[in-house]
């Protein structure tokens, strides 16, 4: 049956060896009343028919494959070089598990070590871990580190309202039992100065985003010093694609840098699997959660890699572990590692520049549209806010139905006072023709 290789003869011989009459007799220990329930599932389907069914479901979606995509807000439609998927399709990578046995896992281990190194470089931090589930849970784990760093004495976390709303929500979910107190983002309008004013001796960490959720590059000059002076840590949530072009959070004085690695060669895939990265100073490494790979040697002095600082982890530390993370997003870290390798130093910068140029071209065109206005008070990277003459939902309906365009993100979903504000994202995949279509579509949609 399907992937069960047993022949009748195999089954007979094996049951005889065990000394039972039937497969069902293996389950005598299971309470009889509940044993062997009926499963209300469809009947089996051949691979061919299953593929057809899945194709039909896939075709029932409008995708970046057949629409122009201007939606970002935390996930971006970048081009993925073919080689990334070819490497990911190697069974040696995707059908292995966590490299518990280093002698049989040097491929995975070295790739993670390389990914850690690249994340360190991009963020400007000394160390990075193997991965977290996504950018949001990386932030939640950063909060844990900050509280632990103060030995639990500081539990106030100041969140910029311009941090991705879903990340803030996840940090809160994670810490509903930990005693962390989140402040700063309630009104949605706190400025950096407001946040700095909240620093006190109970503050464990201040969290900003770079570029912020609205696409803007806020001026963080001097921020780190103020945070550190208050005895707190500075956490920067960031988009690694931007870091190809803009100063690293390390240069800005961050203590912990977290973010979402999806931009780096990972498909949109309706929101996952992605990969959260987590980078910090070497001094905080022992406080961080998750797998970390370090360099070492084998018995004959050959260079080798191995998961290190294992005693921090749940399987050894159990109820004293700071996090329960076990399985992470290994294969996605590999994808990003291959992406960063092949796009490389010059290529990544070029992709980032294209995002920048396309976004600025689009912003300029939209700024000229009657009824629309674009906020460009701060520098921006690939995303910006355009205020529309009508609710974004309605605009997007017109864009999709009449122009085959998936429009930007409706900011009013997270910021009630941002009615009619659309967050538009551009990547290197958006052609000038697509952008011009979008501008045209917006003009049409203005009329209602």
């Amino acid at each position, binding site marked *: 049956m399907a992937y069960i290789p047993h022949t009748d003869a195999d089954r007979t011989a094996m049951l005889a060896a065990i000394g039972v009459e039937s497969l069902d007799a293996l389950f005598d220990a299971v309470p009889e009343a509940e044993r062997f329930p009926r499963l209300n599932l469809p009947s089996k389907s051949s691979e061919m028919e299953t593929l057809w069914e899945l194709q039909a479901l896939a075709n029932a979606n409008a995708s970046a494959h057949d629409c122009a995509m201007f939606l970002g807000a935390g996930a971006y439609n970048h081009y993925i070089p073919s080689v990334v998927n070819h490497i990911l399709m190697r069974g040696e990578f995707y059908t292995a598990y966590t490299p518990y046995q280093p002698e049989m896992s040097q491929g995975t281990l070295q790739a993670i070590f390389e990914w850690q190194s690249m994340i360190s470089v991009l963020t400007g931090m000394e160390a990075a871990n193997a991965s977290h*589930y996504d950018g949001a849970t990386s932030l939640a784990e950063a909060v844990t580190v900050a509280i632990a760093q103060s030995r639990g004495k500081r539990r106030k976390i100041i969140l910029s309202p311009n941090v991705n709303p879903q990340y803030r929500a996840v940090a809160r979910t994670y810490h509903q039992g930990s005693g962390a107190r989140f402040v700063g983002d309630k009104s949605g309008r706190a400025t950096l100065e407001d946040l700095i004013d909240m620093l006190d001796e109970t503050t464990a960490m201040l969290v900003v985003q770079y570029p912020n959720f609205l696409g803007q590059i806020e001026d963080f000059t001097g921020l780190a010093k103020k945070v550190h002076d208050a005895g707190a840590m500075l956490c920067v949530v960031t988009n690694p694609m931007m870091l190809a072009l803009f100063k690293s959070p390390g240069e800005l004085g961050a203590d912990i840098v977290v973010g979402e690695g999806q931009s780096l060669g990972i498909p949109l895939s309706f929101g996952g699997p992605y990969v959260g990265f987590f980078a910090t100073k070497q001094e905080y490494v022992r406080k961080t959660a998750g797998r970390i790979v370090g360099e070492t040697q084998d018995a004959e002095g050959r260079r080798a890699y*191995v998961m*290190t600082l294992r005693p921090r982890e749940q399987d050894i530390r159990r109820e004293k572990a700071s996090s329960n993370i076990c399985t992470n997003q290994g294969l996605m870290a590999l994808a990003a590692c291959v992406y960063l*390798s092949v796009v490389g130093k010059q290529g990544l910068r070029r*992709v980032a520049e294209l995002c920048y140029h396309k976004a600025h071209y689009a912003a300029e065109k939209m700024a000229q549209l009657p009824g629309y206005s674009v906020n460009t008070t701060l520098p921006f990277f690939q995303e910006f806010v355009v205020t529309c003459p009508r609710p974004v939902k309605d605009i997007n309906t017109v864009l999709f139905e009449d122009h085959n365009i998936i429009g930007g993100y409706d900011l009013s979903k997270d910021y009630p006072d941002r009615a009619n504000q659309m967050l538009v994202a551009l990547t290197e995949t958006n052609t000038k023709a697509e952008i011009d279509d979008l501008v045209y579509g917006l003009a049409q949609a203005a009329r209602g």
Partner: protein
Amino acid sequence: METTTTDTNDAKIIEPLIYDLGAPGRYVSTLMPQCDVPESDLPTDLIRGDLDLPEVSELDVVRHFVNLSQLNYAIDKGFYPLGSCTMKYNPKIDEDTARLPGFAQIHPLQDANTVQGALALMYTVQQWLCEIAGFPAISLQPAAGAQGEFAGILVIRAYHQDRGGIKRTKILVPNSAHGTNPATSTMAGFTVVELPSNADGDVDLDALRREADDTVAGMMITVPSTLGIFDKNIKEIIEIIHGCGGLMYMDGANMNALLGVVKPGELGFDVMHYNLHKTFSTPHGGGGPGSGPCAVTAELADYLPGPIVGIVEPAKDENDSPLYGWITPSRSVGRLKAFHGNFGMHVRAYTYIRLHGYEGINAISRHAVLNANYLRVNLASTYKIPYNRMCGHEVVIEGHFENVPDIHALDISKRLMDYNIHPPTNYFPLIVPEALLIEPTESESKETLDRFIDVMKTIATEAHEQPDLLHSAPHITPVGRVDEVLAAKQLVLCCRPIA
């Protein structure tokens, strides 16, 4: 093909780091599209200086990662009986369906009406997983088993809080439990009380009764347990906990023993998580991504992390489809990650369940358990089996011998590598000395099991007659035993100088 060369310069390096390949100034021009819009000025004061990434050709990259991949062992290479991890065959078709452009290229924030296919798929996966486990509600959001646990424990916490249960601060966890269980409980703010196991490997009921009071929020238990056995008193345990007002959490990492055998919801569990990357064969990916859906009783449904997929407009008639949309449970513990979970794993799980149908799903656990017991009876004469009774989908043996005290489970594990077999899980569960937890899964054939049995017997003989063969193992892997102490001491985590 072995990649080590006899080149003395390279002898200490199996495969260079990607950073040590290439040359300054090298790049892959095909990956740099032209700019078709006017270029804007960059804000020079914000621009970074150097970007220390690899400078390699596409061929450099391909060779590097192909060569790295060959340093790995994997299910696609051979037997991988890593206990508690369910390293079963990953159907290739799953990889194709997850990559269909209509799945891979949709954005998580698209309007629901533009992604009805994806929502229908998630809704169906929710339904099927509910049906298999006997629960009415589920959230697909958790990204792995541990996050599924966390979701479930938060649900338990919220439930008690809503009922004023502030003094319910304890979670009971058997000492055989996986480390994530106690860690999860702590993360959620609970105190963990470890319960001893009795001589049969079952939970010590007396100890349980002693702890079962009104400070208990709940109990986390794995079925079958991480010792690979069905606790004979499972219904009694559930009754005891329910009796003191606690909720029962089932760690579903071992669901590969229960498909079509028993529905945890029907046994009386309140919360459970799945590991799709185990039971439903979404690949382990060298350490993820996983997916850990969390299922609950009707009473707890409103607390689930969200959003989840619901029907917002029912189908008008047989030929119509319902309209699917996102629904956030009314008293949700909140969102656990950005967006809606590891959708790529949901596609694979859908594919896998669809291929099997009820016939196949019913067969999986029966054969997984058949395989584990076949190993048990055949290894019992050579290795000590601490709980030698009918087991579930895995069996734990002791990897040591009375008369050769310096042979440890680790030595047996490393020696297995020389026979091109991945070692079982080592030193877990913690309560078994020199534990080797062996999980064959249903996708392994009798021939493979027979060879494993032979090899294990040969190793036992070697342990007695040539113990050094085990101590010096492995011999045929790309590297020999690696020095974990050195790694922690030198703590080299990055190969580049960071400014």
